[in-house]
């Protein structure tokens, strides 16, 4: 829920870690620099079939069109 950490402490810790990392990038509003790059990170989890591990990331328009992630 917006403004609230995930009730699962393990997931909440992951949200906090991602939040710290995102803001450590220093990108800031409009990529003009600053301490605030993201306002919040919310992680929701659901059980899936053991052979499929789908991950969906939703963000505002620009940045992650050019993102890469090694899984």
């Amino acid at each position: 829920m917006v403004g609230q950490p995930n009730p699962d402490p393990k997931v909440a810790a992951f949200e906090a870690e991602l939040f710290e990392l995102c803001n450590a990038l220093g990108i800031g509003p409009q990529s003009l620099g600053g301490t605030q790059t993201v306002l919040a990170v919310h992680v929701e989890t659901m059980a899936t079939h053991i052979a499929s591990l789908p991950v969906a990331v939703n963000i505002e328009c620009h940045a992650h069109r050019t993102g890469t992630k090694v899984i």
Partner: protein
Amino acid sequence: MPVEVLEDGRKRVSAPLFDEDVRALHAGDVVLLSGAVYVARDAAHKKLLEDLDAGVPLPFDPVGQIVYYAGPTPERPGNPIGSAGPTTASRMDRYTPRLLELGLKGIVGKGGRGPVVRDALKEHTAVYMAALGGGGALAALQVRSQRVIAYAELGPEAVRELILQDLPAWVVNDCEGRDFYAEATAPWRRDDRLPESFRAGAKAPLD
């Protein structure tokens, strides 16, 4: 005058731009875009380059001109245009060098450009500027008129001539190779808190 320095240091920029005008624009400058710009985004760029390959004359002469990456929404009665904000520029990276070779001098979009475009801006003395991302409704207030000049079948992605009055933007990549995004974010980056692949000097996804 194509680049007019205002009392507060902002620079009013109008096409046509010559090399000397582009050299007067530096990474970090706040500019006010006025006069005619050509709107084109993905589908229009694809067609522009297909036309070039086929030897068909372009719908506008790019020499000295400014291209704005946008796809405006339909206007309400009484307004010249709907929402008219910038779109992500990196998708046009593959098309940009060709237009710069032909003499295009200014580009307006949002977000960073890849190394190929940054080098081409330097080589051809051109400038990349960013308008306010997410500010399409505000940008529309600075549009005085619009006219579809080519590829009308593309709807919002048709090539348009817009007449602007003081659309705010800032210079990201100048013709000296400076990158304002890199400069602006560096002092805020906390490499001590980041995994190695995200630290300064790490290969960026676009590179």
